[in-house]
């Protein structure tokens, strides 16, 4: 009899509290998930905006890297001088290009011991 009364006195309210807590937790969790989903979407929108910006910057870089721009960049005067400079890219003069046999250069002197298999 005494045992039953203790159970009622302690566990029943505890169960009620737990039940209520669970209910509120579920509601809170659900609202938090929804709120997180809205935040994710906001971040996705931000990313979309940044991607748009990135795409236009990449396009601009690609335009500027065109060979016509590389060979004939905007001309200007050299610093302090009067001479017009182009600073453009030119293809190498084939007459001034020589082809030589690729050979191993002299080895750098190593003071430390190196086992044969690592050499």
């Amino acid at each position: 009899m005494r045992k039953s009364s203790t159970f009622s006195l302690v566990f029943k309210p505890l169960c009620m509290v737990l039940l209520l807590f669970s209910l509120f937790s579920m509601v809170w969790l659900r609202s938090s998930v929804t709120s997180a989903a809205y935040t994710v979407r906001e971040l996705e929108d931000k990313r979309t905006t940044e991607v748009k910006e990135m795409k236009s910057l990449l396009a601009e870089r690609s335009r500027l890297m065109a060979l016509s721009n590389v060979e004939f960049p905007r001309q200007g005067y050299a610093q302090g001088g009067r001479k017009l400079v182009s600073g453009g890219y030119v293809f190498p003069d084939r007459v001034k290009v020589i082809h030589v046999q690729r050979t191993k250069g002299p080895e750098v002197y190593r003071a430390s011991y190196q086992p044969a298999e690592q050499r």
Partner: protein
Amino acid sequence: MSLPGLIKSGDGTNRKRTVILNTIIIFSFVVVFFRLADIMVLKNRFYSEKAKSQQIKTEDIQTRRGNIYDRRGRDLAINLDLESLYCDPGEAHASTATIRKLSSILNTEPKAITAKLSQDRRFVWVDRKLSLATADRIRKLNVTGCGFVTEAKRFYPKSTLASHIVGAVGSENQPLEGIELQYDKYLRTTGGKVQVARDASGRVLSTGMTMEAKGNDIILTIDEGLQYIVEKELEKAMAAWRSVAVTAIMMDPFSGEILALANRPTYDLNNISGADRHEVRNRSITDVYEPGSTFKIVVGSAALEERLFPASQTFDCSKGSIEVGGKNVRDAHKHGVLTFEEVIQKSSNVGSIMIGMRLGKDRIYNYTKRFGFGEKTAIDLPGEVSGWIRRPEKWSATSLGAIPIGQEVAVTPLQVLRAYAAIANGGYLVRPHIVAEIRTPDGQTVFSAHQEEKQRILSERTAYAMRDILKLVVEEGGTATGAAVQGNKVAGKTGTAQLIDPKTRRYSRDRFISSFVGFVPADKPRLAMIVVVYEPKGQIYGGVVAAPVFKSVADQALSYLDIPMDDSPVKNLLLVSR
């Protein structure tokens, strides 16, 4: 224990009050219960639909065309995400000052904007495909009832470069020309719609899906560097000879990969609406012309293949002319007695006709077809024409004096180049192509170009013999010394063809097409190229007009590709600048 609101009392008046109060409370609960039943059960569908329309929003999955790259992965056609401004005239409210500011940003008349805002519709485009910076400036004006939609715009970062290859799209991204048109089914993709939840303040719930669908990327065989070199030199040639048009194609003679293809005049890919029809035309495959002397390789190769003459055979061209079917055909200069090699080297019409007469109609026709003339090359670009050559039974009395020297046949520059590539690669007819690979957005290859079974049209012996003869053309005594490149031997042939005067229906005396077609290095060909100059002024000969263009392009292209000079060792090379 008593419930709140239910009052118990011992006295009569209070009991009455209690009953009334309890009745009111119970009645209220019953009313609430029935109302809830009405909302939740009877009008369930109505309210569900209403909630759905308020909470669910349909969003489009944005579609983007695949990108186009050159063989080294450099951008030729990409997409930009731009903002389009719309408004709902019913909701739109803007003061005169705001409209004035808006018109100044959009660079239009305020009247035009006012007219759009006062239309009797629910949706009006104010302006489309605005830059992000412009859109930001408009956003700051806070115009009620207006908003932005992101739209894709095709952007060609290299502007006019490779315009006749890449092609262009219209304002609604519909394909119009070039690869954009030919490979549209690979480049475009389908979008679709997605339903997303939103709250009362309009915030949208994430779906976790990618809201963009992209088509396949295309990798071309062309090289931006080579394309640029070719276009730069064509521009110079066009100005120097005040010609009507210029065309050039560069190809790998072994694989048929087009490395560069250009025409002048040209157009800006980002502004195709401002281009004239003749600027958009890809003359290298859509225009036919009489090839003139460049066609002499057909009779030359046929004679060698058929072993028609002994090596010591000579041709008496000392008269400087020959009569065929009552028509007198002349040489540009009198040559005297020529060997077989000299006939090609000096481009003698008389000698070529003599060879042609020995070959006969049928063999000339058969070899013309073997070289692929009179049929499409099957290049993967739109608008290619087949050219034509009449069947032998329809030849006139003068045909035997015309066809061996490249008259009475219509060819495209690409067909001529392919014929010379066959000599360069040892006797195989290749299929020219421009797309190397098609890849899905996640990098998987869905198509990869490979050379189909090679079709041998000449024996290796004939091809090498013709190659040696074509080398003589560029050497001292030949017609194309202007095509010689320092350090590497060039093999090729000049062509100077007369155009038909539309008034007299005869060959014009002042309208010509000058051309040079060849390959370099002659003994180990890496590049085959044709240059065609339409109606040059001042000079007419292919050796004077077109050959120097070939030389300028070849000089830079060999340097660009690090192709060593003929006398360099070929293995284990290291480039060193003096």
